[in-house]
């Protein structure tokens, strides 16, 4: 087989796959952030903690109730999404009249509390979660070995991202959402319950984070800090893609995962910072983000 700049194709493909998997998480998480930011104008700093909660709820469902991966894939987002709805109702909804900064600080504080609680009860060593039987093993694609579960992550994230994009851009419900993002007062004056839409949207964004958490549970140890590390990169992804742009969040998520993978092949030392370097460049050249609308 061919070699590119002395890199064996197995290595290249392996890193690209890894990049695509990271990109899957970036895409689903930044999509959730974009959905929330679009309507609520709040940068949801709890997003990483809610991703972690998704993984933990899957773990708890299995270990306390014997409920396996497939039901957890639906139940955990619903449960964590419900906590998001409560959070929005009791706390966030009181802050909309104030500067965005207060929402950011509140969600940041809540993230610290949630992570602290989980650390207190479960420690930081990480809890194992088995790959479901149906997705165990892998297959040889000829040019590389593809672990089935990793392939599943990519497929599941693409389906969820496309589904969310379709719902927001192509359905009547999505039209309400887009309109309320632009002019909530007028949408209310047409008789639509905007506060309820805001609550459900926050719950949905949180559920997306939790879904990513369930996807992550079998490949990363379930750990109270798993979200804190990831979310910093995801914020950079959102800044690059442009706040509030749905397609921007998705494309940038996968794209940056791949770029990170390529960097690991050609310049491993730079792989940890490449996304932040890109973020700095984008901020200098196009501050509203690659897909953002100029304010």
């Amino acid at each position, binding site marked *: 087989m061919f070699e590119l700049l002395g890199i064996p194709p197995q290595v290249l493909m392996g890193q690209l796959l890894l990049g695509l998997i990271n990109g899957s998480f970036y895409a689903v998480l930044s999509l959730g952030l974009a959905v929330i930011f679009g309507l609520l104008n709040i940068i949801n700093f709890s997003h990483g903690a809610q991703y972690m909660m998704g993984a933990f709820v899957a773990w708890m469902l299995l270990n306390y109730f014997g409920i396996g991966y497939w039901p957890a894939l639906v139940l955990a987002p619903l449960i964590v999404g419900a906590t998001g709805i409560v959070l929005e109702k009791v706390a966030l909804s009181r802050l909309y009249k104030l500067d965005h900064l207060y929402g950011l600080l509140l969600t940041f504080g809540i993230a610290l509390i949630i992570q602290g609680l989980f650390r207190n009860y479960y420690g930081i060593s990480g809890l194992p979660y088995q790959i479901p039987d149906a997705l165990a093993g892998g297959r040889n694609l000829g040019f590389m070995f593809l672990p089935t579960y990793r392939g599943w992550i990519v497929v599941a994230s693409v389906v969820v991202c496309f589904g969310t994009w379709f719902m927001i851009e192509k359905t009547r419900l999505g039209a309400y959402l887009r309109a309320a993002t632009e002019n909530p007062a007028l949408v209310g004056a*047409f008789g639509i*319950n905007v506060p309820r839409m805001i609550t459900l949207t926050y719950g949905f964004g949180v559920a997306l984070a939790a879904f990513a958490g369930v996807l992550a549970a079998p490949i990363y140890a379930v750990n109270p800090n798993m979200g804190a590390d990831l979310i910093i990169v995801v914020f950079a992804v959102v800044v690059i893609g442009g706040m509030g742009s749905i397609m921007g969040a998705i494309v940038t998520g996968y794209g940056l995962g791949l770029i990170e993978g390529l960097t690991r092949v050609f310049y491993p030392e730079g792989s940890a910072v490449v996304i932040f370097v890109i973020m700095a460049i984008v901020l200098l050249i196009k501050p509203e983000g690659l897909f953002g609308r100029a304010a």
Partner: protein
Amino acid sequence: MRETATLNETKAAGGDALLAVRDLNGWYGESHVLHGVEFDVKPGEVVTLLGRNGAGKTSTLCAIMGLLAKRTGSVRFAGNETIALQPRHIARLGIGFCPEERGIFSSLNVEENLMLPPRIAAGGLSVERIYELFPNLLERRRSQGTKLSGGEQQMLAIGRILRTGAKLLLLDEPTEGLAPVIVQQIGATIRELKKEGFTIVLVEQNLRFAASVADRHCVVEQGRVIDMIPSADLDANIDKLHGYLGV
């Protein structure tokens, strides 16, 4: 006082009014802009609010919709007191609002804009009928809402509240900044809507246009209705009106 006998007469007739506004006060934050607006609109009537820039016409419509930060007094619609209600509940009683800035959503195409306001009662116009009234909208239904010309955006802003079953339409300066032929088309549409049984409160600066579509005219000045002139008496009162409007 400039308050006239006719003004008091219409107020006394509040019983059979579809919309009855009494002692309506309104604020933007600290700034008190409506100082006791009073007027009535009977079912099927077209009533204008006339007045100079900054007189409080838009604020009156916004206060009726519940869109001001604070309002006091009484706004009764179809027998319901709405002063304590949220805008969405007021809308659901059967009021359609077409704002001064038109409020076309740029992230929605024309058809999505048209279909956005939910049906709140039976008896709204069908989409086919709306496209019949505004053929331009049908042609451009896949375009981005804000890519339309000013006149088309105005038609869209009016058209989308006709579907919902609202009985009362609040139209804020639908002719502002539009070419004469479009103004004529909108005038014809308003007359058509009156025939279909809609009740309309119309904010206007254009006296000629107002006279051509409305039954009565309420003159707004400094956050009050200071006079009411039926269209039939317009010619007799034209000098007084020009005085109010400063033309």
